[in-house]
C-alpha cells in the first residue's frame, strides 16, 4: 500500500472556503455536485473557474479552454466582486500571484491560497493546518489475543501493527519543528524522522534511524513506559491521544527483523584494547555493542547460564518473546562480542583481576537482590520473591514442567504483593499456569500503580483482581508449613512523602484475613553484594548503589564504569541503556584520548 493509497483510504476532506471580504461561501451546488466558484480572466477574456472543494482532488473546470501552465490574471469573489489576489505573498512553488481566501478548520478560519497558474497545486497549508481540516485519524490500536484465549498460553499478547495501520498512525505525527517527544526519550531518539520514514514506507530506514541511538528497539517498543516518556510530551496528546510512538518503534524493529533486513553495521578500525562488560542486561548489552562498533574487543561476563539480564530471567515470554532477546544477543556475538556465561564476577574472577587484563570495565549487574517485608510467616512454603517466581518460570521454563526439570510453583489462590510491572508480570504468569484466582495487593490507590498502563489494562482483561489500599501484615501456614492465609490491613492515603506520592497510612481496626495458597512478594529489589565482597574500594552510596561521575559514569576506580540499576536502583530498560551509552562514549574518549564531550553531546549522537 502506497502513501497515495493510504490517503485514499481516508474519507475525502471537504474544504469550506469563504471570501475574506464578504465572508460568503464560494461553494455552489451545480446539479448535485459541489464546486467552489470564482470569476477570473485570461488574456482579458472573462471566464468562470470552478474548483473541486476536496483537499485530495485537483479538478478544475473553466468556462473557456485553458491549458496547464496558463496564467489567470485575476481571481474575483462572485458575491462581492472584490479581488482575492494577495498583495504580500506569492506561490511558494511557482512564484505566481495567489488568490487568498479562508477555510474553516477546527471551528476557526485559516488562510487558504489558490495559485493563479493553472495546474499548480500549492495551497499554502502546513501539515498542522491539514490536520486541523482533515477528519481525524484515531490512534491505531494493536490487535491482541483474546483475553480468554491468552490466559491459557504464553504467546505474546499484542500482534503489532500491520504496514497499513503503522502508516496510518505515522500520518498522525505533526512533524513538529521543535519535537517535544524527543526530550521525553531518555536516549533522544529522532522520533519525527523515523516516523516520517514510516509514512514514506521506508520501514528499514526507519529502523536504522532508531538504531542510531537505541540498539534494542524491538525490546524498548514493548517494555518502555512511553506514557510517561515520549508520548507524555507529544503535542498531539494535548487535544487527543498522543502518537503511538512505542507501537511504531516496535513495528519497524519487527519489520526489519522479520524481513531479514538487519545488516551488520560498519565496525570502526580495530584497536587492540580490551573491554570487559560485567552483566548482560540492557545496560551491558548497550556498552558491548557500542564498544565493539568502535573497534574494541569486548568480552561480556554473565553470572547466569543465559544472557539478557531481566529481559531473560524477569520479563515473561508473553510480554517480551525470548526469541527477540536471543536475536539481539546473537547479533552482538556476530559483531564479535565474546560472551562468557557462568562467570560470577567477584567470585570466578574479581574486578581487580579483570583490570589486569582489560583496559576498561563496565559494571551493569542490575539490582537483583529481592526485598522481603519482614513479616511473620514469610519463610513459609509457597511464599516466593517475584525474582524467584519469575526466574523459575522464565529462565528455568518451569511453565513447561515436566519437559523442563524445574518444578512449577502451583497455587490456586494467589496473592501478588506490589503494583509495578514486576507484580503485573507475576500475576499474569500465575493466571497462565493454572491459578484460579489472582489478586494484586497494593498499598496505594489505582492512580499510584507504577506499572505501565498497558500492563495494568492487560491484567484487568485477564481477570486479575486488584485489592488496592491494602497491605499484608502476617501469613499463616498449614501443617505442612505451606502458606494458607494472610492477614491484611487497609490503608488510606496521607500526606505526600519525599517522592511526592501520598504516603499510605494503616486504618485502625480494618484487619481482615484472605485465604490464599501462594504469595509472590514483588515489593522491589536492592543491590547484590557479591561483586563488592571482593572489591571493597568501589565507592557506594548509603543505599549500597555504586557512585559514579554522572558525566562519564566512571566509578571511584579509574577505568571502571558502571550504569543501570546498580547505580540508580531499580529503574527502566531504557535508562540502563542510556547510562550504557554515556559510559561507552566516555570510555572511548578516555582510551582513545579523544576530547571529552558533555553528557548532552553524548546522548543522541551516534
Amino acid at each position, binding site marked *: 500500500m502506497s502513501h497515495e493509497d493510504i490517503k485514499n483510504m481516508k474519507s475525502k476532506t471537504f474544504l469550506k472556503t469563504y471570501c475574506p471580504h464578504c465572508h460568503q461561501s464560494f461553494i455552489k451546488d451545480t446539479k448535485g455536485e459541489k464546486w467552489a466558484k470564482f470569476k477570473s480572466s485570461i488574456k482579458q477574456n472573462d471566464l468562470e473557474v470552478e474548483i473541486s472543494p476536496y483537499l485530495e482532488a485537483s479538478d478544475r473546470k473553466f468556462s473557456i479552454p485553458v491549458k496547464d501552465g496558463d496564467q489567470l490574471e485575476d481571481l474575483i469573489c462572485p458575491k462581492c466582486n472584490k479581488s482575492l489576489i494577495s498583495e504580500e505573498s506569492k506561490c511558494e512553488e511557482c512564484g505566481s500571484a495567489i488568490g487568498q481566501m479562508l477555510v474553516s478548520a477546527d471551528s476557526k478560519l485559516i488562510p487558504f491560497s489558490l495559485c493563479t497558474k493553472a495546474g499548480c497545486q500549492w495551497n499554502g497549508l502546513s501539515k498542522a493546518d491539514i490536520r486541523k481540516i482533515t477528519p481525524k485519524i484515531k490512534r491505531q490500536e494493536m490487535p491482541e489475543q483474546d483475553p480468554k484465549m491468552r490466559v491459557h498460553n504464553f504467546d505474546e499478547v499484542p500482534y503489532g501493527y500491520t504496514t497499513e495501520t503503522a502508516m496510518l498512525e505515522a500520518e498522525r505525527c505533526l512533524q513538529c519543528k521543535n519535537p517535544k517527544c524527543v526530550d521525553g526519550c531518555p536516549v533522544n531518539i529522532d522520533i519525527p524522522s523515523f516516523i516520517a520514514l514510516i509514512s514514506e514506507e521506508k520501514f528499514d530506514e526507519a529502523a536504522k534511524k532508531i538504531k542510531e541511538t537505541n540498539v534494542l528497539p524491538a525490546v524498548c517498543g514493548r517494555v518502555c513506559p512511553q506514557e510517561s516518556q515520549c508520548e507524555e510530551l507529544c503535542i498531539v496528546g494535548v487535544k487527543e491521544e498522543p502518537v503511538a510512538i512505542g507501537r511504531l518503534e516496535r513495528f519497524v524493529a519487527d519489520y526489519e527483523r522479520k524481513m531479514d533486513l538487519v545488516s551488520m553495521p560498519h565496525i570502526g578500525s580495530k584497536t587492540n584494547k580490551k573491554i570487559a562488560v560485567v552483566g548482560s542486561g540492557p545496560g551491558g548489552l548497550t556498552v558491548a555493542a557500542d564498544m565493539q562498533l568502535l573497534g574494541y574487543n569486548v568480552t561480556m561476563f554473565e553470572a547466569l547460564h543465559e544472557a539478557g539480564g531481566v529481559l531473560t530471567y524477569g520479563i515473561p515470554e508473553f510480554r517480551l518473546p525470548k526469541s527477540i532477546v536471543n536475536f539481539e544477543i546473537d547479533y552482538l556475538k556476530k559483531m564479535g562480542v565474546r560472551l562468557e556465561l557462568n562467570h560470577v564476577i567477584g*567470585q*570466578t574472577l574479581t574486578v581487580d583481576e579483570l583490570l589486569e587484563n582489560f583496559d576498561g570495565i563496565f559494571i551493569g549487574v542490575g539490582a537483583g537482590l529481592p526485598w522481603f517485608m519482614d513479616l511473620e510467616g514469610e519463610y513459609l*512454603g509457597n511464599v516466593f*520473591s517475584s525474582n524467584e517466581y519469575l526466574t523459575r518460570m522464565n529462565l528455568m521454563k518451569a511453565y513447561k514442567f515436566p519437559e523442563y526439570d524445574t518444578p512449577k510453583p502451583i497455587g490456586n489462590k494467589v496473592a501478588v504483593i506490589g503494583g509495578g510491572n514486576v507484580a503485573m508480570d507475576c500475576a499474569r504468569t500465575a493466571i497462565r499456569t493454572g491459578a484460579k484466582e489472582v489478586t494484586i495487593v497494593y498499598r496505594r490507590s489505582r492512580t499510584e500503580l507504577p506499572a505501565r498502563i498497558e500492563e495494568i489494562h492487560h491484567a484487568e482483561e485477564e481477570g486479575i483482581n486488584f485489592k488496592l489500599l491494602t497491605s499484608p501484615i502476617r501469613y499463616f501456614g498449614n501443617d505442612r508449613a*505451606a502458606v494458607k492465609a494472610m492477614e491484611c490491613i487497609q490503608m488510606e492515603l496521607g500526606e505526600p512523602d519525599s517522592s511526592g506520592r501520598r504516603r499510605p497510612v494503616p486504618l485502625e481496626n480494618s484487619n481482615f484475613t484472605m485465604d490464599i495458597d501462594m504469595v509472590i512478594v514483588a515489593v522491589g529489589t536492592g543491590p547484590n553484594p557479591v561483586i563488592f565482597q571482593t572489591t571493597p574500594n568501589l565507592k557506594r552510596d548509603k543505599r549500597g548503589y555504586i557512585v559514579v561521575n554522572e558525566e562519564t559514569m566512571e566509578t571511584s576506580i579509574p577505568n571502571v564504569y558502571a550504569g543501570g540499576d546498580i547505580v540508580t536502583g531499580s529503574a527502566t530498560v531504557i535508562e540502563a541503556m542510556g547510562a550504557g551509552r554515556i559510559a561507552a562514549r566516555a570510555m572511548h574518549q578516555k582510551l582513545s584520548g579523544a576530547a571529552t564531550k558533555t553528557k548532552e553531546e553524548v546522548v543522541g549522537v551516534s
Partner: protein
Amino acid sequence: MFQIIKKEEMAKGTIIRFDIAAPNIAKKVKPGQFVILRVNDTGERIPLTVADKDEFAGFITIIFQVVGKTTALMRSLNVGDMIKDVAGPMGKPADVEKIGTIIMVGGGTGVAILHHVAKAFKDAGNYVIGIIGARDKDMLILEKEMAGFCDELVVTTDDGSYGLQGFVTDPMKKYLDERDDIKLIYTIGPIKMMHFVCKITEKYKIKTMVSLNPVMIDGTGMCGGCRVTVDDKIQFCCVDGPDFDGHKVDFDELEKRNSLYQQDEKESLLFSIR
C-alpha cells in the same frame, strides 16, 4: 561445557563422586564454597558443595547423593560426558584460622564437604577431632581420607553395623564433657542433625558453625529462595553463607521449609520415572 573426568560410586551407588574439568573454578574455590550446575538445556540448577579441587590439574570434585530427578540423571552420566553449566565458586569460604582444638561433626553426604573444610583446618595448624556418622556401614563415606589427616576420628552408625552405634552427638557430648580446650564445633549434615548438635553445644557455650544447604536456584543472591532466618534477620544462604553461627539459626523454620521441598523433590523424581 564441563567434562566429567572421573566418576566413582560410593555407598553402593547411592552416593557418586565426579571430578569435573573446571579450571577457572578450581583456581578460586576455597573450602566451604559450592557451585551451581545444570546438566543440560532442560535441566534445573542445583547447588553442590565442592568437596575437593586440584588447581594445577584444573578440576573440582563434587560428591552427591541420588535424591531427585537431577541427581538421578547425573548418576547416569559417565567419564567423558559433558555437564552444560557449572558456575562458581558461590558463597563465602569457611572461616579457617588457627584457633586450637576443633571438633568437626559430619553426617551423611555432609562428610564430603566436612572433609574439605577439616583438611583446611588441619593445614592451618589446628588439632582436629573428626566425628562422622552414617545410617549404616554401606552409607559411610570418606572414612579413610578423614583418618588420613584428623588427629582423632570417631565413626558412628545408626544401626551399629560399623563403629559406635548411635548418633554423632553421642561421642561429641563425651568430648565436650571430657575436654575443656575445645574452641569450635563445625558441623555439616542433615538439618535435624545440625540442629541437635547446636542444641547441645549451646549448653556448653562453645561456638558452633553450621554449613546450610537450602533450596537454591541462581546461587547469586537473586531469588531469595535460599533465605534463612539468622539472628532474627533474613539472610540469603548463597551470598551471606553457607556458614552461619549455628546458635543463631532458626532451625524450626528451616526444617519446615526443607520438608516441603523434599516432598516436591520426591514428586519430581516420581514424575521423571513415570
